[in-house]
């Protein structure tokens, strides 16, 4: 007579179950505890495998809609499944799932022919960050009108909590993203050159704008706490022909700034 086996330890059960959930062929996975291997052979085990993968893939598709539109759903879901097997969500809120997705796409061989995908994924990510950032009043477009020129020069414009921007030196990522974030019928030719992007949320809706190198340098300087005169200098340094009046109009209309302060 063999004594009854001791009940499996809860933590060891979870180690084995989690391993079998992600194994390519759970029934054939080696090193599983006999109890887990027996569970993995039951037809019901596939329900958990499918639900976990579907939860991850659905979340990625929701969080990266421009990437999914560019690649087509079938390609996207296959790539997302490979990503999910390598990177399960690290936090319980799937709203932010996919932090490493842009980097994954940059190294993903089947995406080599679509070199703009990682950049588009970064802008999808920025959209999520902007959408869920802290609430803050955006600096109104007319707010700077009352300042004397010398007071403006020393004013610090702080980027809004929901503002995200970046410069893509080699590719028109913003235009590609903007045409694919939602269905677009704009099929005009895209000029293949570097572009910057700004996403912000002045009220309840995320807005975006194309920036030039000067715009991105200007915002970088503002984020570093530099006053307007120095930010303007940084913009001109990035791009000699910078149109600062036009730039300020775009930034204010998109809601790039929150509070202001006088420089020390």
């Amino acid at each position: 007579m063999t004594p009854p086996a001791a009940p499996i330890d809860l933590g060891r059960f979870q180690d084995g179950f989690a391993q079998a959930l992600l194994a390519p062929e759970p029934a054939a996975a080696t090193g599983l505890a006999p109890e887990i291997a027996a569970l993995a052979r039951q037809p019901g085990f596939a329900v958990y495998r499918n639900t976990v993968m579907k939860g991850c893939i659905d979340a990625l598709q929701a969080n990266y809609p421009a990437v999914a539109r560019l690649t087509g759903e079938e390609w996207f879901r296959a790539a997302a499944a490979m990503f999910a097997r390598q990177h399960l969500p690290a936090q319980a809120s799937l709203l932010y799932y996919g932090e490493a997705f842009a980097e994954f796409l940059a190294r993903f061989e089947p995406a080599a022919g679509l070199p703009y995908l990682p950049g588009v994924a970064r802008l999808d990510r920025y959209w999520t960050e902007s959408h869920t950032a802290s609430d803050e009043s955006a600096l109104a477009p007319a707010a700077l009108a009352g300042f004397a020129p010398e007071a403006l020069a020393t004013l610090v414009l702080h980027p809004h909590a929901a503002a995200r921007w970046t410069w893509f030196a080699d590719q028109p990522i913003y235009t590609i993203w903007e045409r694919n974030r939602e269905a677009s019928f704009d099929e005009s030719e895209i000029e293949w050159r570097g572009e910057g992007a700004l996403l912000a949320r002045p009220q309840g809706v995320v807005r975006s704008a194309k920036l030039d190198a000067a715009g991105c340098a200007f915002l970088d300087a503002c984020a570093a706490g530099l006053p307007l005169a120095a930010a303007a200098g940084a913009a001109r340094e990035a791009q000699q022909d910078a149109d600062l009046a036009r730039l300020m109009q775009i930034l204010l209309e998109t809601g790039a700034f929150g509070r202001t302060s006088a420089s020390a």
Partner: protein
Amino acid sequence: MTACLTAGLGLKPQHYEEALACPADGLWFEVHPENYLVAGGPRLAWLDAIRARHPISLHSVALSLAADAAPDPVHLARLKALAERIEPALVSEHLAWSTWRGAYHPDLLPFPRTGAALRRIADNVARMQDALGRRVAIENPSHYLHLDSHEWDEIDFLAELARRTGCGLLLDVNNVYVGAHNLGYAAATYLDAVPGDLVMQIHLAGHAPDPNLGRALLIDTHDAPVTDEVWALYQRVVARIGPRPTLIERDDKLPEFATLLAERDRAHALLRAPLAAAA
């Protein structure tokens, strides 16, 4: 506060405007708090607006109470902050695990109901209740697997968990139906054995046959109307234990708001009936 709640609906972003405006008697809404753990923005603004008009239930899916580890204190603190903001009518979680060793598996995973598991889960439920400063309801999950290592049956396990922690139960009638069908026991017998005084809330949802195995394996899909069999079991429960706040859960293949509201009205009428009879 829960005395006035009858039947509620899961709140979906597609339905925010209609949910906000809906004047139905006894209506409340349930959300997964994980979808609202954000710093700000329109999602939270919608939830605040709807909360100003309707009671809200926070139905957590990711605290992983049945994992062999304490719930993530950071996640628990964020849940507490949301609960302080929303002042929910009810808070609930599942008798299941999802997060393990830092990885979140988006599902409600099974475990062997042993004495050791009971001690761990009672500790985790107590941590949740202590953090939130309130009694929570624990939900019976759907079952798809035969585990040989169970030492407790599920109702005894839940009742003992309630005795040790003071928690209540969220009785998901569809999960009982699906689990009973898949594992081969009688759903009605299970439901008749549930201690009625522990039940704080009831869930109803639709299910579907497995795409490959057909009705040999039912899946708790939340993508279809509640079936007649589940409605009948629900009536049986309400007749025995009395009315409880009841949620129509729909997470996939979302129909129009009016269609969901009609389904919730059916539960509302069933919940009002015993009150009318008693009056």
